[in-house]
């Protein structure tokens, strides 16, 4: 059992969730409540990672964030190491690849709030910020919870991009999914089996807990 790889995957998932939570609140809310030109295109862009193969994104990442790119060079200057083949690079890839998993459920959560409730909040003199914090977030909570859990679980399972831009570096980019692949190739079926079962258990537990939580939240709110 490669605990280092498992812990690395959990770290990657935690960072992805932490960075995507504010994004999913504001983008999900805007997509739910507002009408604007090009909304369809924005929604399509958000959903794009769902249908694109990870290899497409991995390829663009190598080209766009590689050492010869402006962004890659900038990162190298500021932080002293490459963005690609680093933990930070994986976080960036993971954030982009999880956009649909974070924003879609959040958007559905906000859409479920009746417009009268929001109007009542603003009639009562709540500022938009206080309305968001005291009225909308508690109501959209099941959607946001689903968003975070899907993101977390999906990151644990990410393989293609990590394989392409990770370099399988222990303690840095060798995630649990890559470690399983390595074990299979090393003919260590037992090691691969233990890790695969651990991943199944963690994923199942995460999702079960969320469903239980959001069911309780839903009951309390209704």
């Amino acid at each position, binding site marked *: 059992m490669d605990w280092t790889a498992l812990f*690395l995957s*959990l*770290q990657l*998932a*935690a*960072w992805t*969730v*932490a960075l995507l939570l504010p994004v999913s609140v504001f983008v999900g809310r805007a997509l739910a409540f507002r009408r604007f030109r090009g909304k369809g295109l924005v929604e399509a862009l958000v959903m794009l990672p769902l249908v694109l193969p990870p290899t497409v994104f991995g390829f663009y990442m*190598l080209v766009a964030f*590689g*050492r010869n790119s402006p962004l*890659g060079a900038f990162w*190298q200057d500021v932080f*002293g*190491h*490459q963005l*690609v*083949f*680093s*933990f*930070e690079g994986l*976080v960036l890839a993971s954030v982009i690849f999880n956009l649909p998993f974070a924003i879609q459920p959040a958007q559905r959560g906000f859409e479920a709030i009746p417009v009268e409730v929001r109007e009542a909040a603003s009639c009562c003199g709540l500022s938009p910020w206080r309305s968001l914090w005291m009225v909308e*977030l*508690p109501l959209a*909570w099941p959607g946001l919870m689903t968003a*975070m859990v899907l993101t977390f679980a999906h990151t644990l399972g990410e393989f293609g991009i990590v394989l392409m831009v990770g*370099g*399988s*570096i*222990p*303690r*840095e980019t*060798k995630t649990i999914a890559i470690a399983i692949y*390595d074990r*299979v*190739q*090393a*003919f*260590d079926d037992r090691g691969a089996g233990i890790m695969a079962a651990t991943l199944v258990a963690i994923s199942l537990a995460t999702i079960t807990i969320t469903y239980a*939580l959001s069911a309780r*939240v839903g009951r*309390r709110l209704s």
Partner: protein
Amino acid sequence: MTFHRRAFFLAVALVGLLPGSGAIAQTEAPVIAAASDLSFAVGEIAARFQAETGMEVRLSLGSTGNFARQIREGAPFQMFMAADEQFILDLHRDGFARDEGALYGVGRIVVKVPDGSTLAADGTLEALRAALEAGQITRFAIANPEHAPYGKRAEEALRHAGLWDAIQPHLVLGENVSQAAQFALSGNAEGGIIAYSLALAPDLAAQGSHDLIPEDWHEPLHQRMVLLNGAGPVAEAFYAYIQTPPAREIMERYGFTLPQD
């Protein structure tokens, strides 16, 4: 409201996980990229290196071609052990490596068949020829010749035997030679052409049988290693260690012919 408390606990749990590994990576053990035919041999050498010197290296195993690409994109490997020397010479020419490195072994390829296969392990490929003619081959595994040196040599051997065209519809390509071995032994293929060093690994030697393909049927697998730009003292020590008798003894045990010096 309970909702806030729950959100707070979740946030705390997540933040506990947060500190990333990137920040401390600079002082960590150097990463050595090694061709996957070395999967078992270099693991043993690294363990022995650590036991003798107390210094640690981290190994990343994969296809030589992919590593060469990743090094050009700035992958932070400090040393590269390739399965084919051309990749090393090209990296040096383009300024990614310190020098032309050193030859550390010459690899061989074998026909490997799993237990219960209809195919006999026969390095002259006559059994394969007969099985192809009899329609007994469904799948045959090699590494991808486009970027894996062992795949390229397998292709050359199959061409030498005049079987390359006939075997096309049956080929399954591994991303690297280790995956090709995985395919060959999975029971879903009649066999494959893989690295001798993998066939000799204890886990694999126990399953099925293998036979060496004549050395002069393909270009030699001159395996060269090199210190990359940015290599530190630990990588330098490991590079030197590969050329000492204990490491050479391990390489020899995995079927590599060693360079004379």
